[in-house]
């Protein structure tokens, strides 16, 4: 069943167009990898899906509902959560606080949402409570189970998040996203700048994440890693999808052409 | 493409402005021959407020130095004029220059303190200094302490040019003093606008605009931000001090509360600039006219007038950040004081449009 899809997705930074009609799809239970060189538009795609860059409503659909125009917090409360590129831990928060903040707004029934929901009857603005209604944020992930997944975090839970090593910070960022029990987890360049052994440890968590009922999109520059974990792969170049397929059904030459734009 | 591109700040509107400004000045100079005394007083008010607004705009609009303490320079300049006249026997007209010089001297320690505070807190620094100066001047008994003082009659009578004006226009000495003050204000406003316009078109002035738009980029091409800020702050203090001296020379009476009034010398000035359009020379001109009209319409309502002014300033800052002039300029494309350099390309033939292939690379 299609969980999340984009249709002819375009995105702009001022006058600069970064995406030119991107179509991707994520089915329930799947892991999809998006590969591509620097500047291919992968991160822009993630920013569009999460609402950081907002655009036309029906270019992005989640469970059939148009979400392209929604604010990031409403999209998060629908269960689409991102591990941002560069981890982006909150430096003023400890490891444990970073994790807690990931779970504290799930479900989205706070007073502000209710006020906006009430006002939306008159203004025609999106109703955040109705839009977040399908996802209650409950599931296997709690502080304890995240600590089970990454035991080192429990030892360091009272440290500032930014005092940890790169790999540990990445674990915090993933744990923080899991705390809301997302339906869709978007991982933007989670292996960037990490040692291979650390990358292996982090990717080892992926099966457990999938077992918890979360579908995953990983954005990777590391093609080998992406092919290893993904059910399907999209390759992007210059703001367009240049290749789509199952890892076992596409050849190295196809990927090379889709990645660099030149025949091998 | 061998045709030459030229760099210019000249626009047709700019040229027209130049001619119009000269004609306007000529009329303004001979105006006292026809105009009533109250009109001359109104114009004096407009011209001095315009001068203050131009200098505040130079600070905040062009240099990002939001000062809420410019009353320090108005008040100190004015007080030094009174001190020079009363204590040292300087002719009041000559003492106007001293107002500027003393304001400049005050600006040195002020900048020293206020520049230690970054961003918005710079505003607080200038405010504290203004308070310190006000409280200190209020202790100065020779110029009246907390209650203030008046310009002595003999000093007023000794003002250069007054007797000539009395004879030439056949008016009493009080009216003659108003005419003199008006001419001085006219000269000051014209010099201020002309000077700022000239400055913004020099290499330094363009550097200032670069600094406002992008500090990092400006640094990378060698603009010394700290030095520019010092220069602008000192120049603005000098001009503000002169305006202060002139205002209180015309007024004839001074007190710490009136000379250092934050509402009059800072709040009104800020609203003039914001309403007219911050960061343009045209803005304060439009702003002071709107301000004067509002004052004429609403002056009888007291507090309501200030509420309207405050709300107008807020609305403009929120929804039309470039003020009334920004709205006019966007609609019409007119720039009366062009300071931006524009690249003038030679006329292109149809062939010129297709020569370079499209497609972006990032």
């Amino acid at each position, binding site marked *: 069943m299609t969980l999340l899809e984009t249709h002819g997705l375009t995105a702009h930074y001022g006058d600069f167009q970064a995406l030119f009609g991107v179509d991707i799809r994520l089915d329930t239970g799947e892991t999809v990898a998006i590969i591509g060189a620097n500047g291919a538009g992968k991160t822009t795609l993630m920013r569009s899906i999460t609402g*950081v860059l907002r655009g036309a409503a029906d270019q992005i659909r989640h469970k059939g509902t148009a979400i392209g125009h929604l604010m990031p917090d409403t999209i998060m409360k629908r269960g689409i959560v991102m591990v941002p590129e560069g981890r982006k831990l909150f430096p003023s*928060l400890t490891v444990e606080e970073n994790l807690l903040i990931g779970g504290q707004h799930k479900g989205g029934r706070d007073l502000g949402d209710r006020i906006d929901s009430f006002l939306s009857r008159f203004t025609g603005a999106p109703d955040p409570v109705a839009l977040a209604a399908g996802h209650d944020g409950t599931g296997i992930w709690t502080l304890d189970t995240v600590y089970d997944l990454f035991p080192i975090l429990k030892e360091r839970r009272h440290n500032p998040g930014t005092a940890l090593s790169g790999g540990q910070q990445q674990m915090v960022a993933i744990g923080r996203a899991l705390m809301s029990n997302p339906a869709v987890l978007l991982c933007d360049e989670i292996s960037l700048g990490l040692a291979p052994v650390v990358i292996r440890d982090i990717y080892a968590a992926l099966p457990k994440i999938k077992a918890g009922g979360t579908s995953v999109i990983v954005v990777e520059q590391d093609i080998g890693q992406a092919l290893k974990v993904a059910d399907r792969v999209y390759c992007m170049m210059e703001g367009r999808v240049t290749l789509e397929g199952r890892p076992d059904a596409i050849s190295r030459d196809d990927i090379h052409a889709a990645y660099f734009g030149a025949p091998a | 493409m061998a045709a030459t591109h030229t760099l210019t700040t000249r626009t047709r509107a700019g040229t027209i402005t130049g001619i119009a400004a000269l004609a306007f000045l000529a009329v303004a100079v001979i105006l006292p021959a026809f105009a009533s005394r109250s009109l001359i007083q109104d114009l004096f008010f407009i011209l001095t407020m315009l001068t203050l607004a131009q200098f505040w705009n130079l600070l905040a609009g062009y240099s990002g130095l939001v000062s809420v303490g410019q009353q320090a320079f108005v008040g100190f300049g004015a007080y030094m004029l009174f001190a020079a006249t009363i204590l040292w026997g300087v002719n009041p007209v000559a003492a106007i220059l001293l107002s500027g010089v003393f304001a400049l001297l005050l600006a040195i320690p002020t900048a020293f303190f206020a520049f230690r505070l970054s961003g918005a807190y710079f505003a607080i620094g200038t405010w504290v200094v203004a*308070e310190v100066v006000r409280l200190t001047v209020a202790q100065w008994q020779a110029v009246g302490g907390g209650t203030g003082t008046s310009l002595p009659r003999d000093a007023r009578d000794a003002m250069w040019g007054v007797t000539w004006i009395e004879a030439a226009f056949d008016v009493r000495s009080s009216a003659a003093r108003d005419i003199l003050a008006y001419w001085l204000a006219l000269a000051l406003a014209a010099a201020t606008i002309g000077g700022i316009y000239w400055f913004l078109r020099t290499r330094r002035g363009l550097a200032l605009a670069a600094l406002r738009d992008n500090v990092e980029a400006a640094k990378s091409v060698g603009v010394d931000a700290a030095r520019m800020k010092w220069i602008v702050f000192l120049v603005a203090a000098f001009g503000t001090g002169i305006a202060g001296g002139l205002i209180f020379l015309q007024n004839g009476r001074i007190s710490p509360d009136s000379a250092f009034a934050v509402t009059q010398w800072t709040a009104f000035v800020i609203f003039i600039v914001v309403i007219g359009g911050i960061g343009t020379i045209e803005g304060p001109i439009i702003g002071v006219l709107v301000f004067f009209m509002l004052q004429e319409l609403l002056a009888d309502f007291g507090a309501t007038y200030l509420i309207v002014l405050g709300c107008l300033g807020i609305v403009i800052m929120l929804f039309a950040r470039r003020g009334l002039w920004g709205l006019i300029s966007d609609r019409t494309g007119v720039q009366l004081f062009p300071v931006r350099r524009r690249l003038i390309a030679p006329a292109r033939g149809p062939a010129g449009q297709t020569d370079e292939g499209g497609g972006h690379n990032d």
Partner: protein
Amino acid sequence: MIWIDTIVQGVLLGGLYALFAAGLSLVFGIMRLVNLAHGDLIVMGAYLILVVVSVLGLNPFVAALVAAPVMFSIGWVLQKAVLNRTLGDDILPPLLVTFGLSVVIQNSLLEGFSADSQRISMGPLETASVAVGPVTMGLLPLLTFGSAIAVIVGLNQIFYRTAIGRAFRATSDDPVTASLMGIRPDRVFATAMGLALVVATIAALYLGTRSNFDPYVGPARLIYAFEAVIIGGLGSLWGTLAGGIIIGVAQTVGAAINPEWQILAGHVAFLIVLLVRPRGLFPRAVD
């Protein structure tokens, strides 16, 4: 002995300034907003308490409890509808909008309540005092100082022990990433401004009971508050208290030398600290 008394009175006065400043410090710490209307908002709070006292006949402390949620709502709406639009890299809009707001509030209060000075009556509490050794301390100044400490402890508890405090700090660090965690930064800022105005209500209670006030007293109080915030180091609440105490002690010592020097001495103390420690006494490590 007289000097000990002077300094103690100065410290207690510093508590009042810290109360004026705590709201500013909170707002600057979370959203880097320098609110030039804060003093006038405090004065507005004092008028609100005055109205509640005279209309409902309540004790001023109870009246402040009634006024606090009203002030919270005013702050929330003000931030959501107006001030959030001014936040960004450009420092002009927030300064000029809050400056305009200051003028509007002052003159609206003038329209509503005239320029006559007012006072909220506390009855016998106004003159009550306790003697500790050689020093006599007014009960009301003591209460003010105690409230300042309670406010700072309370705000720190909110900051470091609650979910909303986590959201404050996270949004202050990085609003975009906070929004990916389900936080709506504009609401967090609105809540912070609401909270700042609750603190302002407490400040207003003591402003109105300790001395006379009129619609124009806001800016003069605000300047001490800003001095306290800057001396303390931007965004540090305990630093703000220390800053308030420095200003307060400088003022009472100045006044002891010459009554006309009271306010001047406070400003001079501020300038001296600025000279010696441009970033304040307790600058934040991360900024």
